[in-house]
């Protein structure tokens, strides 16, 4: 039986309200069969300090990435990861995490590459759950193992590769990094390690919309109206646009991909996970520096 959607009025305004749940809804659904809660954080130990009762941990660095090739895991490994967490193909998966759901959105995007149908984010993520004083536990659940089918990833619809971006130049793109990274002053996120890009700047034509502008103070997503004001009125994007979002390795832009796709209802948004760590190291690709979008000569 499908798990009902959260009918909270704030969510109802979004294009795809079925992709979000509130903390109130989740608190009531924790015992619900068919619902799995997954925590995905930047900090690999945060889950272990306490988590939502029944939640399992999924770490993108060590689990969703292929250990050798710069790529995501394949269908067999994904099936293994989910099966051992008791998640079936029909399970409703609710993902939450730290830092405005940054890594949770990334995990959701990877689930979407495998076509997992019912995957939702907890609006406000870990921070809101904790701020509301809701129950946390250190008990690690031991769900019975299930058979998750081996489904090969479909990278065609929501993932862009470098060649796709080259072919896309001149069409809408969103650079979700910090202003310093966009202009080329910084080769990495402020306060983060240098991850080895030899050139700074942005892909010509890309609009600068730092990802966290989509998040409110309490880590929830801003309202539909506020989001439209940023992406549509201010940046001039339109739901009919074919859009590519990128950042440094594709994690922050997964958050923006989620906003554009599920909250604003843009049907053609791709995440370029090669992002600046690929583009900024590639030979003879066009780069714009400074605060202007620039264009390809």
């Amino acid at each position, binding site marked *: 039986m499908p798990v009902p959607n959260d009918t909270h009025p704030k969510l109802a305004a979004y294009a795809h309200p079925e992709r979000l749940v509130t903390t109130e809804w989740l608190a009531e659904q924790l015992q619900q069969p068919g619902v799995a809660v997954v925590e995905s954080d*930047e*900090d*690999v*130990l945060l889950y272990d300090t306490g988590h939502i009762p029944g939640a399992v941990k999924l770490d993108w660095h*060590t689990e969703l990435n292929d250990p050798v090739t710069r790529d995501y895991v394949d269908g067999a490994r994904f099936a293994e990861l989910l099966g051992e967490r008791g998640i079936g193909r029909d399970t409703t998966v609710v993902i939450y995490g730290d830092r405005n759901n940054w890594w949770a959105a990334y995990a959701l995007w990877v689930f979407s590459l495998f076509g997992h149908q019912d995957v939702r984010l907890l609006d406000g993520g870990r921070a809101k759950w904790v701020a509301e004083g809701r129950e946390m536990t250190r008990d690690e659940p031991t769900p019975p193992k299930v058979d998750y089918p081996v489904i090969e990833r479909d990278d065609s619809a929501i993932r862009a590769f470098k060649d796709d971006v080259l072919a896309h130049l001149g069409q809408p793109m969103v650079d979700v990094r910090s202003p310093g990274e966009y202009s080329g002053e910084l080769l990495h996120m*402020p*306060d*983060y*390690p240098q991850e080895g890009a030899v050139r700074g700047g942005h892909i010509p034509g890309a609009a600068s919309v730092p990802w966290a502008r989509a998040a409110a103070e309490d880590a929830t997503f801003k309202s539909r109206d506020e989001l439209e004001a940023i992406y549509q009125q201010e940046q001039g994007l339109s739901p009919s646009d074919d859009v590519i979002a990128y950042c440094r390795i594709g994690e922050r832009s997964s958050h923006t991909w989620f906003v554009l796709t599920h909250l604003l209802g843009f049907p053609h948004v791709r995440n370029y996970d090669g992002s600046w760590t690929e583009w900024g190291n590639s030979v003879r690709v066009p780069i714009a520096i400074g605060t202007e979008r620039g264009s390809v000569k």
Partner: protein
Amino acid sequence: MTAPVGLPPRLAELVEDFSDVSVKERLQLLLELSEELPALPDRYSGHRDQMEQVHECQTPLFLAVEVAADPDRTVHLFFDAPPEAPTTRGFASIMQTGLDGEPAAEVLAVPNDFYLALGLGEAVSPLRLRGMAAMLARIKNQVRSAG
């Protein structure tokens, strides 16, 4: 992996503790260490301007290094990182446990890549480990510049 030679005794012990256990247990050990990171003394509490920020860590980490005027030039370390950053706190706690109270010469002699012997690369990913290398480099710089 065997511990690199020349580590101060408590740091060598920690390296052994980590390398003796499974990958999952290493995370548990790191979590325990993160919980043991001492609170800041009053002179630093609320005074981040008197501490140095380690920008290479994923989460803001502040550190202060004091070198005593005794013949050993004994080093004391102080760290500040929020509870929602247990990995960073764990790294800081390794430094605190392993190096606090050691003579300056011992601290400066720690190999810059000693942390590889902890075997945490698999457990936390090499990228997250960079913070640890940066912490040690900044500690050494401060010990040197303390004259």
